[in-house]
């Protein structure tokens, strides 16, 4: 992290305007953004979804997605204006001089080819070296990225390795032709926090090793703080501010920048209740022959919020499926409000079904795209309470007001709502049944930070007004701090520990909780370095 002045300019983007075509008209995606990048420097680009950060990152290669076009501006890479090059000339730069690392490694590897073949494809196409030497080099890259079995992992197909490993292999693929610039487009967003730490550390060390310049795109300020020398904040296709990492973190100038980590500042005082809404006792569950839950026991206090945390595959969503009856348990029982619940969904009474509702992670897929808001919220009112006509409409409007929307939304379709509004409608649909227990399955993980804050505040307000109990399933520790009273930590289908928030979040921890909590990135540019030092010692 040396001073920029002594370094040579590698990339300069001047006054970039990009338009995108959607909903039958052209929208402005970028409205005149400038960007400078020096050799060996890492620039962080952050913003919410729709801020234009990905478009900016791809534009740095002179590429726009189908349906987008560069209206104005210059992209000078190594002195050459990429906007003036032909497709053929750009292709010679792509992959070899500028490489791209995508968000979802699982979707970005071709499922039909072996990993090694894909790793060396760009360098091999440009004939930078013989195929054998490229393979040898790729194995060395795998090794320095700390991939297990680095000699043979390249002979596997993408579906045979884990998400975190794929993301590292993609970094190796980008590095294979030794590019001068790598664009990292949200490379760790899809990963668990514990995996994220390993991937971040591997990416940072390899970029430093070869002194490659990079643009790191993310919505997570804490992550970018570990990687970048400088940070640029984008919003609505315009620059909000730019500063060196340390300066940005200690002294953000704009209100908007401060709001980016607002969820992290949301804190709820914990309370408990000795009366249990729901008790799960010694539950085992399995998908076919593979067992996923082992002797899980959880108590949910009435009118409070219990957060179930764990990484993907820990069994937290499966627990929710067992509670709702979607997946019958093989052993153990569920006591709901003092009475045991039937294992099978079909055997539960309408009343029992009404009292337990669920809200899903993806509001897009959880709503029928052909139904209006009125139909979506109105159906549970009719189904559970038999209310029809005028009364039903009045109830729908009341619910809309409860979720801070108004009756102008009644005739809208889900496609006409923003992500946050969709999730609010899903909350209203759950509330329409007038439930005692709502299971929130990762309800905020698909949303932007500011929208997340709004949803969490709404859920808290509803709990205060209605006394409803929440089970909050999440992998995000900041959300847990913001909303929960009690925490359950799960790992590999077992409960690691359960207790009040203050007890779980403060030491001493069992090993796994320690690993999980320490892996959550903090707003400290030295956090990753310190953590790695601590873990290796």
């Amino acid at each position, binding site marked *: 992290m040396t001073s920029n002045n002594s370094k040579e300019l590698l990339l300069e983007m001047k006054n970039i305007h990009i338009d995108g075509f959607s909903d039958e008209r052209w929208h402005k995606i970028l409205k005149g953004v400038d960007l400078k990048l020096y050799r060996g420097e890492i620039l962080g680009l952050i913003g919410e979804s729709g801020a234009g950060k990905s478009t900016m990152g791809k534009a740095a290669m002179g590429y726009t*997605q189908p349906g987008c076009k560069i209206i104005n501006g210059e992209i000078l890479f190594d002195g050459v204006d990429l906007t003036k090059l032909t497709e053929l000339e750009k292709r010679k*730069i792509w*992959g070899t001089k500028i*490489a791209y690392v995508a968000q*979802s490694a699982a979707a970005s590897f*071709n*499922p*039909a080819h072996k990993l090694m073949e894909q790793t060396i494809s760009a360098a091999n196409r440009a004939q930078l070296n013989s195929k054998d030497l490229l393979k040898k080099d790729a194995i060395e890259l795998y090794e320095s990225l700390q991939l297990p079995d680095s000699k043979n992992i390249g002979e596997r197909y993408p579906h045979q390795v884990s998400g975190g490993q794929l993301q590292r292999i993609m970094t190796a693929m980008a590095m294979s032709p030794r590019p001068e610039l790598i664009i990292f487009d949200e490379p760790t967003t899809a990963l668990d926090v514990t995996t994220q730490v390993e991937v971040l550390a591997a990416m940072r060390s390899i970029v430093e090793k070869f002194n490659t310049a990079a643009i790191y795109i993310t919505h997570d300020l804490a992550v970018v703080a570990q990687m970048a020398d400088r940070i640029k904040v984008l919003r609505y296709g315009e620059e909000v501010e730019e500063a060196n990492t340390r300066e940005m973190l200690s002294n953000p100038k704009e209100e908007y920048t401060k709001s980016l980590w607002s969820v992290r500042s949301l804190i709820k005082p914990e309370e408990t209740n000795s009366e249990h809404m729901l008790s799960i006792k010694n539950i085992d569950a399995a998908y076919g022959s593979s067992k996923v839950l082992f002797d899980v026991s959880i108590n949910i206090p009435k009118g409070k919020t219990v957060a179930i945390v764990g990484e993907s595959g820990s069994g937290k969503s499966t627990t929710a499926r067992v509670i709702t009856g979607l997946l019958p348990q093989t052993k153990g029982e569920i006591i709901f409000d003092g009475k045991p619940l039937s294992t099978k969904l079909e055997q539960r009474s309408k009343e029992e079904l009404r009292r337990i509702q669920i809200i899903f992670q993806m509001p897009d897929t959880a709503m029928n795209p052909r139904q209006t808001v009125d139909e979506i919220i109105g159906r549970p009112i009719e189904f559970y309470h038999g209310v029809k006509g005028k009364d039903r409409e009045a109830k729908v409007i009341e619910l809309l007001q409860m979720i801070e929307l108004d009756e102008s939304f009644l005739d809208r379709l889900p496609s006409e709502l923003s992500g946050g509004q969709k999730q609010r409608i899903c909350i209203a649909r759950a509330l329409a049944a007038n439930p005692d227990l709502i299971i929130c399955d990762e309800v905020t993980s698909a949303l932007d930070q500011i929208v997340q804050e709004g949803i969490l505040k709404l859920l808290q307000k509803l709990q205060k007004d209605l006394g409803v109990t929440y089970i909050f399933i999440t992998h995000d520790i900041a959300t847990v701090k913001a909303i929960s009273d009690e925490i359950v930590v799960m790992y590999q289908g077992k409960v690691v520990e359960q207790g009040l928030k203050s007890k779980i979040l403060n030491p001493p921890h069992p090993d796994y909780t320690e690993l999980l909590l320490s892996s959550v990135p903090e707003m400290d540019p030295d956090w990753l370095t310190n953590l790695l030092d601590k873990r290796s010692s």
Partner: protein
Amino acid sequence: MGLDKPPVTRYFDWLGNVFQGDFGSSFSGRSKVQGDQGDRSREVVGLIVPRLKNTLFLTGVAALLAVPLSLILGISAALYRNSYYDRSATGVSLVTISSPEFFTAYIFILLLATLFPVFPTISNVDEDTTLIERFYRTALPVFTLTLVTLGHMMRMTRSAIINILSSEYIEMAKLSGASRYEVIVKHALPNAWAPIAQVIAINLAYMLIGSVVVEYVFNYQGIGRLMVGSVYNRDLPVVQACALIFASTYVILNLIADLIGIISNPRLLYPK
């Protein structure tokens, strides 16, 4: 004949015999001279085998022409998507799909046999016909079968590839500097084999069975004509045998397509 046994038993007896190459006897056998007191019936196998050979020859030649042609046309249409070439290819293929075989057949007869007499209108072949002569005589039915199936296979190849072109790994391939041709042939096509194999299988089966109409128009001695003739004559054993052959063609071709789908997909071939 075992008429005293229940129908189910007789059916399975018949099916068991089929596997040993015995399809039973035809009702319309007239092979022995009159007055002969011996067995006058003909074996169904003897009737079917030469006809089946003829039909397999016809559809085989048509398939060898149609499958590679439709793959080339489909891939190139995907490569130059929304170009004039793509639009005219998909447009014309819609016309060929929509026209019934007999219509296409008569158009060919009009053009290549009447106005410009290049090929014969009647494709009568027997065991003595030489291979070259066979090609010449079956040219028009082969063209007809090719044309009616070509469009469907071409459009399916095109759309299977275009479907895959919106995947993230295609964008990734582009951003690593792959050319259009490489993106389509190396990155999209290997993932498109399963749907393409499926549609080829359906069309090959369609060719074999659709040849009933074409054989009739060109008076070609194939199994389709045999079946239609047997229906007229109420010759049930022959009709039954033909139905079994046609049905198993569908099943076997689809099975092959499924196998190709499995082999072309590493996810199914190599477990985690």
